[in-house]
Structures are given as structure tokens and as C-alpha cells.
């Protein structure tokens, strides 16, 4: 009772990074709140899940192994969590802000009337005073998230309803093994007790999942472009520079919206959070929602023809010039001076 639950995202028997990151965060919250960390695996052929998650300090692993639970569909996974949560009464439930977590989370929160905060960038524990009701709540989960296109950061709390639910994007939290030898308890669930046959109303006819070819999150060098790059054609320059330096190409939301780059390259609050060794921002003005996703880069070079672009404030080097002019020169002088 009153423990922290993490819903595990599983593809082909492998637990997703986003879930392992949440387990890491869940572990530290559990320590602070002096409670246990539990995980829920729903899918098919889940024998290898325990070995993947126990090193992250999972005290109890609930396994719902049923052919019909894979691939994911909304209603069966919702029923499973809703009925399990009614039994176990977790104080906190976390899931990835992914296409699964953002489909499942709202439905579960609605069924349980428990508040859900999407896309949190930070989770902390603290007190909350409801001045109107004259009540003080201890040990609430602070669900911290950007709002209004990233122009403000809001701290959300769920004073009265449990579980306190939050989703977090991949890459926002750090993934860290607690003890490679640790083994918690496994609890096999009788799926028919949790999920009704009538829940299987949506049928997956076809499915093409790709392992992400991109590894923006893990790349030490990122060459990223914004709306100021001007065209998909000019984005090729970024790819050329990235290939020369051995890095990946990223993009701002504005560049993705304009169709200059694919959505999976988006960096920022609504994309991936990155912490590379070098971040080269090309034609990016520096909207807060973008900066929040890359400000922890060790070194930032901003290339912009607007000397007053907001991103310049957080850059180590500011080059005033156009992408078409500067990038070919960087490629040329890198080649000339390297090795």
C-alpha cells in the first residue's frame, strides 16, 4: 500500500529506456518517502523482464502475461492498471510520456479520478498549503512541467486524490542501476481477474515499429537547426557538418513544424532533452521550450544572423552570420586542421 508504481513499456520483450529512467527516479522518490518501488509489466512472454528491472531497485514486479496484452491496446491495459491500483492504492504512479503512456495515463486517471500531469520535467517531494481550506499537506509529489509553450514552469500537486500520476518524456530523467545483484519479488497476476473480454474491442491489424535509427540523446555532438535555417535544402548543410564532426542533427519545434526536419529530431520540452559535449545551434532564435531541452550541453555555439537572438545569452560562442556562409567554412577548416 501507498507505494510508487511505474508502468513498464515493453517492445519485443525489452523494457524501454523511458521506463528504466522512471524506475531510477521512482527509486529515489521511494527512499525519500520511505516506501517501496513497484513495477507493472503487461504483455506477452515476459520472463526476461525481472532481470532487466530488478537492478534498478524494483521491490515488487507485477506481471500480467497474456497473449492478448501485446501489442498494447488502450482498454485492456487501462483495466489492468485501474483494478490493480484499486487493490494496491499506490501514492504515486509514473509512466512514460510516449504514445503509449499518453494514451493510457489519461484514461486511467479519469477512471480513478486521480490527477495526472503530462510531460513533467522534474519530480520532487514537498509540502503544500491549501490556504482556503486551512490545510497543510506533507510529502506531496511536485509535478513540475512547462506550460504555455514553455514560457512558464508550473508546479502541480494532487492534494486529495491518489495515485498522484505523472508522465515524463524519454531522456528527461537519468537512468542509473542501483545494484546489479538486487532481486525483488515477482507477483504473477491472473489477467482474467483484471481485464474483461469486452475490453478487447480494438484490434491491431498491422504494426511496423522501428528501433529508432537516431541516437540524438546519446550523441556527443549535435548540430541543430531552427526556423532560421530557411529550408529543408539548407538543412543538408547541417547533416554535412554533423557527418564531418561525427554527430547527429537536431531541430527546433519551429523547424519541424515548417517541415525542414523530421519530428524525431526535435529537441526541447516537447521533443528530446539532450546533454551533449557540443551543441551547435543554427538559425535557432532560442524559444524557452527549445533552450530547456539543451541548456545542459557542455558547450554551445550559436550561429545566427540576428545578433540579438535570445539563444546567444546561453551560448559560449556566438557567431553572427548565415548558415549558408558559416557551415561550409566550419567543414572546410575542420578538415584542414584535424588529424
Amino acid at each position, binding site marked *: 500500500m501507498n507505494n510508487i508504481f511505474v508502468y513498464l513499456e515493453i517492445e519485443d520483450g525489452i523494457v524501454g529506456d523511458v521506463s528504466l529512467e522512471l524506475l531510477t527516479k521512482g527509486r529515489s522518490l521511494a527512499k525519500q518517502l520511505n516506501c517501496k518501488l513497484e513495477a507493472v509489466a503487461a504483455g506477452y512472454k515476459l520472463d526476461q523482464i525481472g532481470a532487466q528491472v530488478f537492478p534498478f531497485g524494483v521491490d515488487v514486479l507485477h506481471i500480467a502475461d497474456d497473449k492478448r496484452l501485446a501489442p498494447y491496446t488502450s482498454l485492456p491495459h487501462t483495466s489492468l492498471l485501474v483494478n490493480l491500483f484499486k487493490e494496491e492504492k499506490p501514492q504515486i504512479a509514473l509512466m512514460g510520456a510516449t504514445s503509449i503512456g499518453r494514451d493510457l495515463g489519461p484514461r486511467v486517471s479519469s477512471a480513478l479520478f486521480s490527477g495526472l500531469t503530462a510531460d513533467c520535467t522534474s519530480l520532487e517531494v514537498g509540502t503544500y498549503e491549501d490556504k482556503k481550506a486551512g490545510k497543510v499537506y506533507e510529502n506531496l509529489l511536485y509535478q513540475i512541467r512547462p506550460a504555455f509553450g514553455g514560457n512558464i514552469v508550473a508546479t502541480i500537486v494532487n492534494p486529495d486524490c491518489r495515485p498522484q500520476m505523472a508522465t515524463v518524456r524519454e531522456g528527461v530523467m537519468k537512468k542509473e542501476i542501483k545494484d546489479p545483484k538486487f532481486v525483488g519479488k515477482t507477483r504473477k497476476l491472473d489477467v482474467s481477474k483484471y481485464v474483461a473480454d469486452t475490453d478487447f474491442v480494438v484490434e491491431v491489424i498491422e504494426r511496423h515499429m522501428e528501433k529508432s535509427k537516431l541516437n540524438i540523446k546519446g550523441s556527443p555532438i549535435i548540430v541543430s537547426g531552427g526556423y532560421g535555417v530557411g529550408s529543408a535544402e539548407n538543412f543538408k548543410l547541417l547533416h554535412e557538418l554533423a557527418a564531418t564532426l561525427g554527430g547527429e542533427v537536431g531541430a527546433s519545434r519551429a523547424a519541424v513544424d515548417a517541415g525542414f526536419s523530421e*519530428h524525431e529530431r526535435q529537441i526541447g520540452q516537447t521533443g528530446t532533452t539532450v546533454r551533449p559535449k557540443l551543441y551547435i545551434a543554427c538559425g535557432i532564435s532560442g524559444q524557452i521550450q527549445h533552450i530547456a531541452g539543451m541548456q545542459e550541453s557542455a558547450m554551445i555555439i550559436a550561429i545566427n544572423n540576428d545578433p540579438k537572438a535570445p539563444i546567444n545569452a546561453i551560448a559560449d560562442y556566438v557567431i553572427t552570420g548565415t548558415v549558408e556562409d558559416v557551415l561550409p*567554412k566550419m567543414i572546410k577548416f575542420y578538415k584542414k586542421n584535424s*588529424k
Partner: protein
Amino acid sequence: MSFNIVVLAKQVPDTRNVGKDAMKADGTVNRAALPAIYNPEDLNALEQALRLKSKIEGATVHILTMGPARAAEIIRESMYRGADGGYLLSGREFAGSDTLATSYALACAIRKIGKVDLIICGRQAIDGDTAQVGPQVAEKLGLPQITYAEEILDLSDNKITIKRRLERGVEIVKGSLPMVVTVNGSAANCRPRHAKLTLKYKHAATPSEKQEAGSDYTDLYDAHPYLNITEWGVNDIEHDIQWLGLSGSPTKVKQIENVVFTAKESKRLTAADVEIESLMKELIANHTIG
């Protein structure tokens, strides 16, 4: 045979084009500096609805939106693009709603509309980016959901087949109606306004808008009932007040902070060859690259 589609839409501040004056000196959002627009993904949803309308005989498309009086603008906008009409849910009882209270109010309004075969909405609104209202409306109505829809591939024998665009792939799924579908921004753009429809619906208005405009046009609305946009307050829908507004919202905002980043001392360079070359040499020397 009738086939009733309801599109859930929201009027939102345009947070994508936030200028320098978007924040006030005290750190609050300057709403006046942000134009109110039709939430982009709701337009993608409207397009999917209109495509079905053109394929299914007798199909109707109505917009349901919750918001202040001026949110009727997006209902008119929808009519200019081909929708049959809409419902505005408005009132101070709805103020302070989080996504759950919003979903409850919308679900009550959908029950009031009556027989609805398909509910379509955008995946998420750009002012909150939560993507919660669609699934929560589905749960409140006890309906199944298909999220992240990119295209409705087929609708026949009361079954809908949909292509979903997910972060790492594509899925084709099939389910029975009635259903809630949320549509991605990667779906087809909404058709432009149609000049004929714009002329036809220019005077479409809610009762409050008519009242504000004066009574000169009473005859017009009597002669053209399609110009009446339905406006519902809290008493027009069957509801339990505790699930609306602030009391129906389990999440509370503890604190709002303006985002401030610590500025670094940056080196300024021009695009001159010598400066770029010396920068590249420096990066190679300190092993940042190479």
C-alpha cells in the same frame, strides 16, 4: 441513415509564435499579445470529419467547444470549412477546470447532443500539450479510443479502420463505433475556407452574440435557422456540480514561475575565415571535436 460526427475543438492562444512581449514584467503571461487561434490539431481532426461527411450520405459534422463567448469564432470558422454547426459550452462554473473537469463537462454535453456515432478531436492543444482530454472524454462516456490517428482508412459496417502515427512507427487498427478518435498534426491539413460557405455563415451567431449585436437581425435568424449556434450553460447539461470547474479538478497549481536562464559570458565571432578557422582549431585542441 444519419451519421453524427462531433468534433471537439478549442480556441487557444498561439503559443508557437511567442514574441518578446508575450511575458509581462511581473512574469505573468500577456494573453493580449497572443492571438487566439483554432487549435492546429483540431483542424486536422475537422478535416477527417469533413472527409467522412463527403463519403457518407446523411452524415453531419458539429463542433463542440468549451470556452468564453468569443470561442464561437472557431465554430463559425468550422462552418466556413464545411461543418454543419456547433455547440458552445460556456459559463463561469467551468472556469478553473483541469483536463478531467473539462472532459466531464464535454462528456455531459455530448450526452445532451444525443446520438453521436463518432467523436473526433485533435491529439492535444498547444496551450497545454497534455493530450489528455480526448482519452478522458472517451473514458467518461465509456467509449473506446484510438489516439494518434493520421488517417481514417475505412468506415463500414459500423467499424472504423485507422492508421496511427506513433513515435517509432505506424499501426493500423480497427474498432467498433461509437468511438473517440484523436488526430495527429501529421494528418492532412484542413481544407481552406470556402467563399460560398463564408458568405452563407457570416452571420452565424450564438444567442449572446445576437444580443450584443442588437435585435435588428431577428428576421434573419428566423428565416435561416442554420445561422443559430447553440450555446449551453451549466444548466443546459445534466451534471453533478462537484465534478465541474475547480472542485472537479484533482490537480492544483501550486506555483507558476517565469522561466529564466542564466546567461553565460559568450565570445562573439563574425563569419570571417580567420575567426571560424581559429574556433575550429580551438575545438580540436581542447578535444571537443575530432
